């Protein structure tokens, strides 16, 4: 990184004013597995498909939804290894913030710092942009929040959002189903139904992952059996 031969940025402007590398990164995200998030009145839920390349893969060892702090969780669409790097950096930044201010990092601050890291990789020497978009779900003093961070480093606060394959269908479905007064359990059911829309094959507790945070402000990833319970309720 930062070697003299690569001290120029690989992300350069095109004549039309676009950063082509970022466009391609977004394409990489768009071909990743669907993930979505819904902000309810009393919490946030994020969910993703967990399609493994073969039935021989030990699905219990794969966890796509990660905890950044006890009250903030994240899911990605796109390249898994890239998301690991971001998760690691975000956790460290959250911890550094806590060490300095002795206050748990607010969700917006963590999102901003993560987005800054992603932007740096679009303007530094010898590196490429991250091939992931993140959905950050958190609950702090400002209430439940859901943010999406893109490879360019831009971030948005959403009431409900989807990323990856099938994103337009999923978003249309969410637009129809979303209500402001939705509670967390309804949001989980809506999330499951949205995933089901574009799901190829039989949906089960083993090939989707759900993470949620409620008034207790503890982010947790549901176990496959808990997911099964919600699946049965949603039918």
């Amino acid at each position, binding site marked *: 990184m930062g070697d003299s031969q690569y001290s120029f940025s690989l992300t350069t402007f095109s004549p039309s004013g676009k950063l082509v590398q970022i466009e391609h990164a977004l394409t990489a995200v768009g071909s990743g597995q669907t993930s979505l998030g819904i902000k309810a009145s009393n919490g946030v839920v994020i969910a993703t498909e967990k399609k493994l390349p073969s039935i021989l893969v030990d699905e219990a060892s794969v966890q796509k939804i990660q905890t*950044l702090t006890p009250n903030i969780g994240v899911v990605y669409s796109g390249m898994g290894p890239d998301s690991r790097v971001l998760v690691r*950096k975000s956790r*460290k930044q959250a911890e550094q913030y806590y060490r300095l201010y002795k206050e748990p990092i607010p969700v917006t601050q963590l999102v901003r710092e993560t987005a800054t890291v992603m932007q740096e*990789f679009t303007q530094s020497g010898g590196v490429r942009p991250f091939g992931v978009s993140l959905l950050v779900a958190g609950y702090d003093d400002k209430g439940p929040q859901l943010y999406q961070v893109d490879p360019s480093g831009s971030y*948005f606060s959403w009431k409900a959002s989807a990323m990856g394959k099938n994103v337009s269908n999923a978003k249309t479905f969410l637009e129809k189903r979303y209500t402001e007064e939705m509670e967390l359990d309804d949001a989980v059911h809506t999330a499951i139904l949205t995933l089901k829309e574009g799901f190829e094959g039989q949906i089960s507790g083993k090939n989707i992952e759900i993470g949620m945070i409620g008034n207790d402000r503890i982010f947790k990833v549901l176990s496959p059996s808990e997911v099964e319970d919600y699946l049965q309720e949603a039918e």
Partner: protein
Amino acid sequence: MTRFEESAPVKGGFSFDLCKRNEMLVQKGLKPSSYLKTGTTIVGLVFRDGVILGADTRATEGPIVADKNCEKIHYMAPNIYCCGAGTAADTEAVTDMVSSQLKLHRFHTGRDSRVVTALTLLKSHLFSYQGHVSAALVLGGVDVTGPHLHTIYPHGSTDTLPFATMGSGSLAAMAIFESKYREGLTRDEGVKLVAEAISSGIFNDLGSGSNVDVCVITKGNREYLRNYMLPNLRTYVSEKGYSFSKKTEVLMTKITPLRELVEVNEGGDAMEE
């Protein structure tokens, strides 16, 4: 350009550049500024179901008691606590830093922290500062491998013991432990022995005093008994109170109300692409 190299080894750290200058100044007669030392009696012992840590609560600045009720038992992890003797700032900073590192480690591995992990992080840090970080620690906790108790010296050496004492009151406390410790103590016996050892330090050592803090760590649970014993209460407080004669005349009284707070709504956190 290389701002993302945070995870690469830091080239900073303590700079020893000014040490020669400081030595020269001391030789010329400049007195080094005083810092807050903890004096201290800190102890730890392993009992039947886990580990008990104890500490006094006096912080001294030379001959003056700077803090009559300071906290010397520091949190490292839900199952690991650390008592600190030496320079108060050093013990606070080093335990805080390692606690932070342990938290990140727990996130990455998804497992509870082990006492040896805290031990190794602390001793590597202290060793790399060659004893200039004046922190003498008693580290205790219970993890998957069982209860552990260690002492860590400012230069970075460690001991693993069934019972340990550190600080200026360590001899007074160790006298109690050596005569009364045995293996397989129950919780109540252990807490009583720890309190006795700390009291011995409080009453027999000038650098230790005030109250007794105790922390009991068992598998899956910990009890932080802040001010478990208060053997040095201020018994006599004058009922008359104190009166001070007024020396300054009031010429004029004027009340200026604070300005009204104006809220600026910036329109939320949305960003443009």
